[in-house]
Structures are given as structure tokens and as C-alpha cells.
């Protein structure tokens, strides 16, 4: 074992990937399409969300290309509007919301709690099919001429003033919403009812805690979005007027109902990412997460408070000023648990024994970028500065720091971290470290200038802008191309590693989670026999004793 890495791989000349595992157990397309196995469904999800990520990414590339010059010259304004709308819809509903939960979470939660599968395998499969149906509807929307409401569907613009495919987009999101509800529901039931003997709540890995919190938000928030979209669709088709001021409705009511889901949705997107970071930071510093309980409860606190801050999206939209005060105060409160998490992760490193493999690099990136993203959220949560900064590129930069700098970094970190478990093979370390660094640099170059642009007052969703904003926009577009390379690299070398990667063995990272104590890739039923949890989470001393025992028995 070298001094700079914890990776311990089996002897490559003799090592074999286990003949029987969840990938090889059954063959044929049908065995995948009708599977109940959470790991296979996770794999299906991984493929489909990657597909949508690259569609969304291509649209992002088009946006940055258009913004290279102040005039709207690459695209006409209405094309630009369709591009950023589809970018938002696809990235939010088809990538970010299902990203970590439906792929890594789906794969890991049964493994982490010591169960054979999620509680409701058929519902899990149904959730993927709903996602696919929704995805097809979204693609249909794009092919049929797109939609240009912005992903927020602001009424009465979306209901009365546009003649693009609002209805099909709304229904696509409606269906995708049910996919998300069923995933969340399945997680909650699994975490409550399927834990193995000895697996108490406070022995659960923090990844499970954060997915649990996100699932609560999915289950309780998404239905409100669903009914809101139904009302928007009805408003367009039979003109019922609940959101139409001309008929006596209130467009702000739409904002209330929409953000009641869509603010918690931000936490649906970031919480599972935070869970990944907890696992990764602990594993690569060989230490229990500093203040496990605080980190666990901060996830739940974010979920609970996260429900009652939605109107901070409407401070200048004409809600009552008193309501603005209350929502601003609650927003400040919900910022605190995130701060707690950041410092707890930092102190997990204290007196650890740290190595710097790719997942850890991404985790470091996450911590830096999420700190910026979180702090700028406070700028927007304070009512006063929100007046100046909202609806500008400042807000664009803020949520990209949280969503891309936070969630996407965490997603990539998690994919690299669990890749050996998922496929049985290692990814190539050097090039992936390079990709992590490229992503980090590209990201900052892309989105940091946008904070300055926002402070200068450049409004979001502009196809053309005053020429004095060009320099910063050029920086941003240049950064986007670097970022694009950073995202293309993993898909290339990860595909490569499927065939040529080193055999990983059961526990290449020497991690403590239950998932690492079984073969990689796991068996269809996960555990040969149901495990009994007899130690705390992240107990590296237990792991050491275990390994000594094995050595002794082999010797």
C-alpha cells in the first residue's frame, strides 16, 4: 500500500469479477426492462439521466454561444427563449431531481440499510417507466417546436400569452413528478421498515439520512406541483381563470403553489449530494464524520424548514411585506444547517489520514463551491439586497453554484466513488483527477463572472444585452467550453473502464459501509445472508479488526 493512496486492489493477475452478480444473473433486454432489482433500475436510471444531462448540456452550450456577443445573432430571441426553457426543464426535472436519489440512492440505499431490495420493487420500476414516458414527452415537446415559458411557467405568460407546447411540457413534468414521488416513497418505506438487525437510526450512513430528508420533500412537495400544473393545463385548454387576473384569478397564487414545490425541490437536489460528500470525506480521511448527529439532524432540519421558505422567490412580486419578513427570517434559519455541514466536513479532516483520489477532489470542489453558493443565497434571502440582485445573473450564478457546483460535483464524486462497486472495475485515476480539476476551473470561469454581471444588473433570460457586459460574458462562455471538456472526459474514460479498468475487488477504498463488505458488483439479492450490524457507521477500527481476522483465518 503506497503512502499516498488507500486503494488496495486484489492481485490483477488472479483477480476475476465474480461470475454471478446482478449484471450477469439474467441476460436479454427483457430481463432488464422487467427487472425488480434496485441495482438494475439504478443502472437504467443512470443511462437515461446521462442522456438527458447531455441534451441539457448541449442546450447550455447554445446559450453560452449566443451570449458571446451582445446582439441576438446566433439565434432569434424566440429560439433563445426556447433553448433556455428546455435547458431549465431538462436539467431540473430530468437530471437534477432524479440525479443522486434515483441512481446512486437507488443503488445504495438497500445496500446501506442491509436489505435485499427496496420495499416496493415494482413501484421502483414503475417510477423509471414514468420517467421515461415523461422524458419522451419532453423530447416530443422539443421536436414539436419547443416551449418558451421559462422553467418557472410564470402565469399569465404561460397560460395566455404564448402559443408553444406548454401543455405537453406541463404534462411531462406532471408525469416526471410522479416518478419522483414513487422514488421518494420507496426510500422512506425502505429506510423505516427494511433495516437489517442492529441497524439503528444512528448507525445509518449519513447518505441514507440525507436521502431520507430529500424523500420527505419529494413525497410532500411534488403533489402540489402536480395539481398546479394541472390547473395551468386546464387554464390553457378550457380557460378557467384561477390564475388569470382578467377573470378574477390571482397569478400570485400560482407563484405560491409553484414555489411550494420548487423551493423544496432545491433541497431535493442538494441534500442527496450532501450525503455523498459525507461518505466520501469520511472514507478518504479514514475518520468518522465529525459530529455525526449534527450532520444527520441538519439534513432533517433542512427538510422541515425548507418547506416554509418558498415565498422568498416572490419578494418583489407583490406579496405582503410582512409575509416577506417572515419568509426572509425562515430563509436565514434554513441557511444555518448548511453552514453546520460545511464545518463538520472540514473538521472531519482534522487528525485524519487523508488521501486525494478523484472522489475526494470532487468533494473538495463541492465544499468550496457550495460555500459560495450558500453564502450568495443569503444575499438573496435578505429582503433588501434581494431587490437589487434578484432576476439578474446573480441569481443564475447562485443557483448554478449550488446545483452544478454543488450537486453535479457531488454526483460525479459519488459516481467515481461507487463505480468500482457498481461495475467491479476501477476508473483510471490520473485522467479522472485531471477531469476533476478541469471541471473545477471551468466551473469557476463560467459562473463566477456571472456574479459580477448580476451585480451590474444584467437581467437573466436576455438574448441580447448592452455591450458593456460583453467582456464578462466572453469569460463565461470560454469557461463553459472548459467545463464541457470536464464533463465529456468522465463519460469517455468511465465507458473505457467498463472493459479495461482494473478489477476492483470488494473494498478498494477500505471503506466501512455495508455495501463495501460484499462482492462487487453485488449479487442480485445483495447479501448472501442478511447482515447484522454490530458497530457504528464509519467505524474504521471495526474494519481493521475485521481485516486482521480475515488475514488470520486465511493464514
Amino acid at each position, binding site marked *: 500500500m503506497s503512502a499516498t493512496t488507500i486503494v488496495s486492489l486484489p492481485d490483477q493477475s488472479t483477480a476475476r469479477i465474480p461470475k454471478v452478480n446482478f449484471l450477469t444473473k439474467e441476460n436479454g433486454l427483457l430481463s432488464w426492462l422487467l427487472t425488480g432489482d434496485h441495482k438494475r433500475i439504478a443502472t437504467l436510471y443512470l443511462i437515461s439521466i446521462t442522456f438527458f444531462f447531455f441534451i441539457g448540456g448541449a442546450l447550455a452550450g447554445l446559450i453560452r454561444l449566443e451570449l458571446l456577443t451582445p446582439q441576438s445573432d446566433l439565434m432569434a430571441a424566440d429560439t433563445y427563449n426556447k433553448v433556455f426553457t428546455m435547458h431549465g426543464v431538462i436539467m431540473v426535472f430530468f437530471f437534477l431531481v432524479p440525479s443522486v436519489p434515483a441512481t446512486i440512492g437507488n443503488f445504495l440505499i438497500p445496500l446501506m440499510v442491509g436489505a435485499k431490495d427496496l420495499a416496493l420493487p415494482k413501484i421502483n420500476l414503475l417510477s423509471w417507466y414514468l420517467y421515461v414516458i415523461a422524458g419522451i414527452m419532453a423530447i416530443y415537446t422539443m421536436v414539436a417546436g419547443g416551449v418558451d415559458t421559462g422553467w418557472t411557467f410564470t402565469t399569465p405568460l404561460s397560460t395566455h400569452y404564448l402559443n408553444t407546447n406548454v401543455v405537453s411540457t406541463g404534462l411531462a413534468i406532471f408525469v416526471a413528478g410522479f416518478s419522483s414521488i414513487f422514488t421518494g416513497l420507496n426510500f422512506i418505506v425502505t429506510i*423505516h421498515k427494511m433495516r437489517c438487525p442492529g441497524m439503528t437510526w444512528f448507525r445509518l450512513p449519513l447518505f441514507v439520512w440525507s436521502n431520507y430528508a430529500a424523500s420527505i420533500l419529494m413525497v*410532500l412537495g411534488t403533489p*402540489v406541483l402536480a395539481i398546479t400544473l394541472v390547473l395551468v393545463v386546464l387554464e390553457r385548454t378550457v380557460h378557467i381563470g384561477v390564475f388569470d387576473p382578467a377573470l378574477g384569478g390571482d397569478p*400570485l*397564487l400560482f407563484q*405560491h403553489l409553484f414555489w*411550494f414545490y420548487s423551493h423544496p425541490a432545491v433541497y431535493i437536489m442538494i441534500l442527496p449530494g450532501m450525503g455523498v460528500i459525507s461518505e466520501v470525506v469520511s472514507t478518504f480521511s479514514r475518520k468518522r464524520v465529525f459530529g455525526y448527529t449534527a450532520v444527520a439532524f441538519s439534513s432533517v432540519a433542512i427538510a422541515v424548514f425548507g*418547506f*416554509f421558505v418558498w*415565498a422568498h422567490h416572490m419578494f418583489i412580486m*407583490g*406579496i*405582503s*411585506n*410582512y*409575509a416577506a419578513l*417572515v419568509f426572509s427570517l425562515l430563509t436565514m434559519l434554513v441557511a444555518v444547517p448548511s453552514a453546520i455541514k460545511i464545518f463538520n466536513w472540514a473538521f472531519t479532516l482534522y487528525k485524519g489520514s487523508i488521501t486525494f483520489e478523484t472522489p475526494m477532489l470532487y468533494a473538495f470542489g463541492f465544499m468550496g463551491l457550495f460555500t459560495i453558493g450558500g453564502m450568495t443565497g443569503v444575499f438573496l434571502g435578505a429582503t433588501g439586497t434581494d431587490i437589487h440582485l434578484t432576476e439578474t445573473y446573480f441569481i443564475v450564478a447562485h443557483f448554478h453554484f449550488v446545483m452544478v457546483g454543488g450537486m453535479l460535483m457531488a454526483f460525479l464524486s459519488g459516481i467515481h466513488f461507487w463505480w468500482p462497486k457498481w461495475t467491479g472495475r476501477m476508473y483510471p485515476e490520473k485522467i479522472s483527477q485531471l477531469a476533476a480539476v478541469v471541471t473545477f476551473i471551468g466551473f469557476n470561469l463560467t459562473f463566477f463572472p456571472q456574479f459580477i454581471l448580476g451585480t451590474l444588473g444584467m437581467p437573466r433570460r436576455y438574448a441580447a444585452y448592452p455591450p458593456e457586459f460583453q467582456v464578462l460574458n466572453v469569460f463565461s462562455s470560454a469557461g463553459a467550453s472548459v467545463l464541457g471538456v470536464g464533463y465529456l472526459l468522465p463519460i469517455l474514460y468511465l465507458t473505457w473502464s467498463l472493459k479495461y479498468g482494473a478489477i476492483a475487488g470488494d473494498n478498494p477504498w477500505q471503506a466501512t459501509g455495508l455495501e463495501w463488505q460484499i462482492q462487487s458488483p453485488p449479487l442480485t439479492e445483495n447479501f448472501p445472508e442478511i447482515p447484522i450490524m454490530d458497530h457504528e457507521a464509519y467505524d474504521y477500527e471495526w474494519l481493521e479488526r475485521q481485516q486482521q481476522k480475515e488475514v488470520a483465518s486465511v493464514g
Partner: protein
Amino acid sequence: MSEPTGQDHIVSPKTYAIVAVALLVLTATTAGVSYIELGVFNAVVALAIAVIKAMIVVLFFMHLKYSSKLTKLTAISGIFIFLGLISMTMADYISRAWGRW
């Protein structure tokens, strides 16, 4: 495995019958009360009776009374979030009239 043990308590038909009669009586009451002029209390009484009826249904027909703490907590958390949605949205609408904004 003879009996599913999750199903600890079997509610007797007698209880169901009493509950059903109580619900029908409450329905008749609320319909009757609506014919009496009580001002704002018409709405209060009607909703109070609705809450009582819903609670009876949840507790006995849906067996919440005999269910685990977790199920009780689930039901309560649903009501909590629902009330959060209504009350905080209403709070905005009501307080809009307070100032000149």
C-alpha cells in the same frame, strides 16, 4: 407464520357499526345546522363537524387508533404540512391589506 402479526388488532363489527351510525348522525346534524342562521359560526360548526368525522374515520375505519407510532406520526405530519401550505399562503393574502403595499 400463521397470522400476519402486523395486523395486531381486529376491530369488531360492533365498533364499525357504532362508528358508521355516529358518522351518519353527524352528517344529519351538520346538514340540519346549516339551516339555522349562526352567522360566521355556520362555517365554524360545519368544519368542526367535518374534522370530527374525518378523525373518526381515520381512527377507526383506517385503524389509526391501533396503528404504530410511525403511522400516527405520518398522518400528523401530513396535516402539519398541509396546514403550513394553507396558513402561510393565507398569511400573505391577509397581511397584504395591512399596509399600503
